[in-house]
């Protein structure tokens, strides 16, 4: 029997839930949410085949605002949850949402090993250089001189360079976006989702409440002056000399993603439990 099934065209609205975001007005994360739904619609992904996993923080509220499957996980542990899900259900599209505190500090170790493992998923970090939800503590990407009552005189600590770390750890796709350009961000996200392996997309997303100075980012960002590369050496040099505002796909690797062979465990769980009986 031949079935005539037409592929359904999805609209952005198909990926939005009825929950209204509670981010501060002006927050870059509104645009990021828009970019998520645009990218999903662009790729025509059925919402029930997409999972958005997150940790803790303002950015991590995003799964509730989508109509896809979602998992609002433990602080810094979103990648572990997502990796487990993806290797078990490789048929699903897994997108992980995090922030600079959740992703680079509490979840820093998971970040390294997720890049190294290269499971086929997309990791989006909404970087605002601050812990917004907990009222403005410095994060791993905060500038050393950022001076507030919570960090008098600044931390004087060199900021983390997530893109360089991602490259050195084995990420297979590296890009930087600016939340204020949701169409371009959606295009990059779509490319990241399509690319096999671990795709890392850092999105500069201003915190207008605790970092009002970041409103100036829209004047500072600029397209990366050179085309993307698949050469790790070239990418390393470029990323090391990067001014932090180069926007676009910066590295697209060719490593095969990690996916364990499907199959049943060769041991019965009840047998295993016996070994742990007290």
């Amino acid at each position, binding site marked *: 029997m031949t079935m005539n099934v037409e592929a359904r065209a999805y609209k952005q609205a198909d990926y939005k839930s009825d929950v*209204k*975001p509670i981010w*501060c007005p002006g927050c870059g994360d509104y645009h990021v949410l828009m970019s998520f739904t645009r990218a999903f619609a662009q790729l025509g992904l059925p919402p029930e085949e997409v999972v958005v996993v997150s940790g803790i923080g303002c950015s991590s509220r995003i799964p509730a605002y989508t109509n896809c499957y979602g998992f609002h996980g433990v602080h810094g542990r979103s990648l572990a949850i997502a990796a487990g899900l993806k290797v078990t259900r490789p048929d699903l599209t897994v997108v992980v949402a995090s922030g600079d505190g959740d992703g680079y500090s509490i979840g820093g170790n998971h970040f390294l090993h997720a890049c190294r493992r290269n499971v086929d998923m997309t990791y989006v970090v909404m970087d605002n250089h601050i812990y917004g939800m907990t009222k403005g503590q410095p994060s791993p990407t905060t500038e050393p001189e950022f001076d507030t009552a919570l960090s008098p005189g600044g931390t004087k600590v060199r900021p983390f360079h997530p893109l360089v770390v991602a490259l050195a750890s084995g990420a297979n796709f590296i890009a930087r976006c600016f939340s*204020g*350009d949701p169409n371009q961000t959606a295009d990059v996200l779509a490319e990241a989702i399509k690319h096999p392996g671990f795709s890392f997309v850092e999105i500069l997303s201003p915190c207008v409440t605790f970092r009002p100075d970041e409103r100036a980012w829209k004047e500072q960002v600029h397209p990366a002056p050179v085309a993307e590369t698949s050469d790790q050496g070239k990418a390393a040099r470029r990323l090391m000399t990067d001014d932090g505002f180069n926007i676009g796909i910066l590295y697209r690797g060719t490593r095969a993603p990690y996916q364990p062979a499907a199959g049943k465990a060769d041991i019965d769980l009840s047998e295993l439990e016996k070994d742990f009986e007290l």
Partner: protein
Amino acid sequence: MSKSPVAPKVGNLNDLLAVAYQIEIDAVERYRLLADQMEIHNNPELVKIFRDLARAEGIHGEEIRRLAGDFDVVAHAREMAKFAKGESPEEADLSTAHYLMTPWHALQLSLAGEERALAYFTSIVETAKDAKVKELAGELMEEEAEHVNLVHRLLRKYPEPSKTWADDLDPPQSLE
């Protein structure tokens, strides 16, 4: 990043209808989003203004759809009416929103959108080779000019607030 939109190519009347429709729909989406933000942050005056603006843009979108007759302008818009880099002319800039913003600020956002739309349709009138495209773009341009005048009239009712409009006696930076 790129505030001057790289606009979709308008080759015929259907393209123009699709782009005009999409511009209105993009505006509806943004105004609804802003209304929701103001609702969450308990700024009811702004909720009403943004909902009214969304309704008005939605009516314009429906008018364009009616004008398109049997032609599926929605599907065509989805296919080709993409402002590839930057924003659709009437999309309000979300990054300028503030939880204490006033009607004056809302109208400034609206004015900027209407002016961008006016500039966009004016550029089509000036460059279109197809007479029908030129004619419809001219009508759309006149409509946008009317909207610009309307917002200016509304701004007389809502003068610019004092410089302390963003002062909050119970600010979110309570640890500072």
